């Protein structure tokens, strides 16, 4: 994927931001983009080996969608930072520890149940987060409206799979329960409090604190998990470690997704 074309639609809006607001917005955009980017790349590891051909196409397409969302968010970020880096440079030219994705997206691909559990918890969390983006920064509000239209389908797909694994007999259910237990323990890290959160709320870029998005996510999860008699995620303290200290699985993935870019530094693709 090439991320090099940067539209300048947001440049004017970005230029009007003062420093604290720009930093806070950049942090939000980076966390959102890295979540979509890392999660999308991990999902793409199913390409060619998903359970059936149709599902292979579906999962690959969803992974591409998520990378497309990451691309759009990195492009907005490039406009906001205006530091000479384009979306490609932000996406690929960082050391693993500089990525700010949530620990939920640090999980290895695992088996099908692991992927469904991670995707399920993330999709609904992302939806709650997207619903928390206000109108304070026009270019982001416009983009979020588009992202939410695409995420509707992702949600339908992953919820269909959770229901089928939960009701799919002893082995399928057992694997789903085990996978959910692992993923749920780190799933709330999507709502890790941001340093710039008070500023984002003042600016109306966030319409509610991420803690409120976390609460909305739990209400949403309850409606699906309780009828299936599946456990809800534990509540956790939101410390900065929610988006730091990445796993070996992520470092492996990082080597994969940066390998082409690193193979010929500075090349135009």
């Amino acid at each position, binding site marked *: 994927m090439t991320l090099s074309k940067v539209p300048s639609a947001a440049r004017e809006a970005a230029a009007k931001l003062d420093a604290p607001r720009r930093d806070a917005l950049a942090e939000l955009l980076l966390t959102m983009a890295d979540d979509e980017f890392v999660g999308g790349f991990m999902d793409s590891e199913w390409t060619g080996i998903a*359970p059936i051909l149709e599902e292979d*196409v579906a999962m690959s397409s969803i992974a591409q969608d998520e990378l497309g969302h990451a691309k759009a968010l990195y492009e907005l970020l490039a406009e906001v930072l205006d530091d000479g880096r384009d979306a490609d440079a932000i996406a690929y030219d960082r050391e693993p520890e500089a990525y700010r994705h949530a620990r939920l997206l640090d999980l290895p691909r695992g088996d099908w149940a692991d992927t469904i559990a991670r995707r399920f918890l993330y999709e609904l969390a992302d939806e709650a987060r997207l619903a928390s983006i206000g109108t304070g920064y026009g270019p982001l509000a416009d983009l979020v409206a588009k992202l939410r239209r695409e995420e509707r389908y992702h949600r339908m797909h992953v919820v269909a799979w959770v229901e089928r694994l939960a009701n799919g007999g002893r082995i399928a259910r057992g694997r789903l329960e085990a996978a959910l237990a692992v993923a749920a323990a780190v799933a709330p890290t999507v709502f890790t409090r941001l340093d710039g959160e008070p500023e984002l709320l003042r600016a109306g870029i966030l319409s509610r604190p991420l803690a409120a998005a976390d609460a909305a996510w739990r209400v949403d999860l309850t409606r699906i998990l309780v009828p299936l008699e599946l456990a809800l995620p534990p509540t956790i303290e939101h410390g900065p470690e929610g988006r730091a200290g990445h796993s070996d699985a992520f470092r492996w993935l990082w080597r994969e997704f940066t390998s082409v870019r690193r193979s010929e530094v500075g090349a135009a693709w």
Partner: protein
Amino acid sequence: MTDQPPADRALEGGPAGTLEPYEVFRQEKEGGPMIHGGNVLAPDAVLAVHYAREMFGRRNESTRLWVVRRADVHVLDDPDLLDPPLDRSFKKPGGYVMRDKLAAARGKAGTSKPGARAAAHDTTGRRTGGEA
């Protein structure tokens, strides 16, 4: 996707015992005809619609899809019924130019386009009668 019965896929392992084919029809633009696009294998109708969307709708090429379980399709392919051996040329309108007569009839009736029947024919696939 397959043109064969689902038994083929069962040999490849996976949850194939429960898969069955669904035929997918697609509409390229609103009001256009539903054209057979191909088929998908799926364990149920919900996932069949997801897979149809991925195979026939993810590149903005369709405004509507109909997804039909193949087992629900009534097939008629009996050559005695569709291709009878006796001469049927007298049933074909060849050599009989309708266009001018139709135009004259339309002029007389004051209607411009022959679209009334087509417009009344539902191409949305939505269930009619009862709740929507």
